[in-house]
């Protein structure tokens, strides 16, 4: 390991960010174009777009927008609304203000339309970027980092190399005092005994079992299990085998608890994120409609950086947390070099041991945390996906 510390951005609440983003947030699809133009015209890699499409609001979506305002990689926000939607840009701005972040808000109707809003918006963004350039810097190390991981576009190498190196890295990160988050409880079918055996306490064991049972019930109702004919044809023989290939990215350390989407991580260690909808409104939202949504769920819990493990190859990034794309498939890595950040496939053809590969990943994490753009950042990927979903804020307490 060459270098173990870097300079991050100090936030009022004591958290430390690895980026200093100014986020333009639209509060309804009708305001998206103006918000997107503001991001484009700012011509700055630090200005990002986030938004919620629906006019009728949704508590889950509002919580997620707020979690991103509070995110340590975010230095300021500009909330842009049309003027007749449920979600309130002024209230989002108030939260940013309480957090000591640079903020402003507009209604397009009050400003006098597209051109007028863009004019005042871009002038404000220039001022805000100037203020953000003076954000106090603070030393950071791996123990300050929160990293989330999910997989998508998986093939047989994901469970052999891509997810395995993430698991080894997560063990190392947790041992150094850092925080790791993994998700996809619907891909842990048959492994409740395994996950609960890693619970840090009796209460956590109960939370994991509750979340697992809920996910199974969800799969049964939605008639959607996470294994398909293509998986069997590709060599997977059981759902347990596929599940373990996904769960292996959690490494081997004790699980500290179950996070809900948009909940801050209470303390360092390894955490399971539940992104499955809660009961009562089973037909209100699906679990992870795209990898972008899954990555944003991890970000909403405060992940500074996100891993996307993809055997077949994906190209996406993330608006708030830099995305490191890991493949266990050397052919995919060669074929999509401009998009793939990391090749775990070197462990499969004997070029590297898993320990060497993990150390290489750790060096990459430190470089990206220090400010080097990940492949998706360099290409300008800025994906996000916020959906209507029903979720409680916490795993319900035990009913005696």
């Amino acid at each position, binding site marked *: 390991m060459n270098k173990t510390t870097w300079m991050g951005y100090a936030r009022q609440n004591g958290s430390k960010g690895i980026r200093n983003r100014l986020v333009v947030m639209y509060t309804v699809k009708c305001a998206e174009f103006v918000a997107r133009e503001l991001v484009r015209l700012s011509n700055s890699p630090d200005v990002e777009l986030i938004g919620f499409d629906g006019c009728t609001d949704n508590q889950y979506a509002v919580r997620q927008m707020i979690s991103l305002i509070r995110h340590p990689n975010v230095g300021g926000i500009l909330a842009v609304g049309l003027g007749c939607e449920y979600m309130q840009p002024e209230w989002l701005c108030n939260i940013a203000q309480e957090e000591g972040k640079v903020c402003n808000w507009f209604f397009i109707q009050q400003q006098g339309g597209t051109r007028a809003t863009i004019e005042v918006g871009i002038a404000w963004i220039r001022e805000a970027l100037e203020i953000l350039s003076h954000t106090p810097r603070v030393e950071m190390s791996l123990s300050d980092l929160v990293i989330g991981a999910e997989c998508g576009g998986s*093939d*047989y190498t994901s*469970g*052999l190399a891509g997810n*395995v190196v993430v698991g080894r890295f997560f063990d190392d990160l947790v041992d150094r005092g850092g925080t790791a988050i993994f998700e996809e409880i619907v891909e842990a*079918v*048959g*492994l409740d005994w*395994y996950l609960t055996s890693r619970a840090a306490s009796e209460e956590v064991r109960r939370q994991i079992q509750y979340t697992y049972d809920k996910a199974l019930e969800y799969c049964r109702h939605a008639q959607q*299990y996470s*294994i*398909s*004919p*293509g*998986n*069997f*044809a*590709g*060599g997977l*023989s*059981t*759902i*347990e*085998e596929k599940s*373990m*290939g996904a769960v*292996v990215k959690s490494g081997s350390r004790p699980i500290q608890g179950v996070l809900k989407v948009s909940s801050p991580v209470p303390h360092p260690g390894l955490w399971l994120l539940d992104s499955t909808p809660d009961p009562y409104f089973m037909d209100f939202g699906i679990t992870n409609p795209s990898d972008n949504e899954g990555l944003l769920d991890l970000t909403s819990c405060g992940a500074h950086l996100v891993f996307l493990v993809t055997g077949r190859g994906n190209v996406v990034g993330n608006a708030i947390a830099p995305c490191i794309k890991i493949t266990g498939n050397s052919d995919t890595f060669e074929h999509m070099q401009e998009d793939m950040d990391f090749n775990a496939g070197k*462990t*499969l*053809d*004997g070029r590297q041991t898993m320990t060497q590969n993990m150390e290489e990943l750790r060096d990459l994490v430190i470089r990206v945390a220090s400010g080097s753009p990940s492949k998706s950042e360099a290409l300008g990927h800025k994906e996000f996906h916020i959906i209507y979903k029903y979720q409680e804020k916490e795993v319900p307490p035990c009913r005696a």
Partner: protein
Amino acid sequence: MDRIPTAFVITAADNVATALSPLDCGPVTLLGDTEVSSITATCEIPQGHKIALRNISAGENILKYGIPIGRATADIPAGSWVHLHVMRSNYDERSSHLDLQTGAPKDTKYE
């Protein structure tokens, strides 16, 4: 140049390895967490599928990642193909009725 046929062992406790290339009958180089450097494949095994590392008796667990991923439904000789025809899930009843080659369901009527 043809790729050397290889299979990958995830943990030393495993009784199966995963084919990194299509395997013909004959010697296979083992990579990963293993002290044994090769095994002889007794039949063709597709890429991404599993090869038995030792004789496995009917009823015994199939171990990958060091955990049971299902159990043997027949005696499985070392070096042979381990898939739906000789093992089944401990949870998912349906997967033991799927087509061996394609994974397509055989229990849904198209009529």
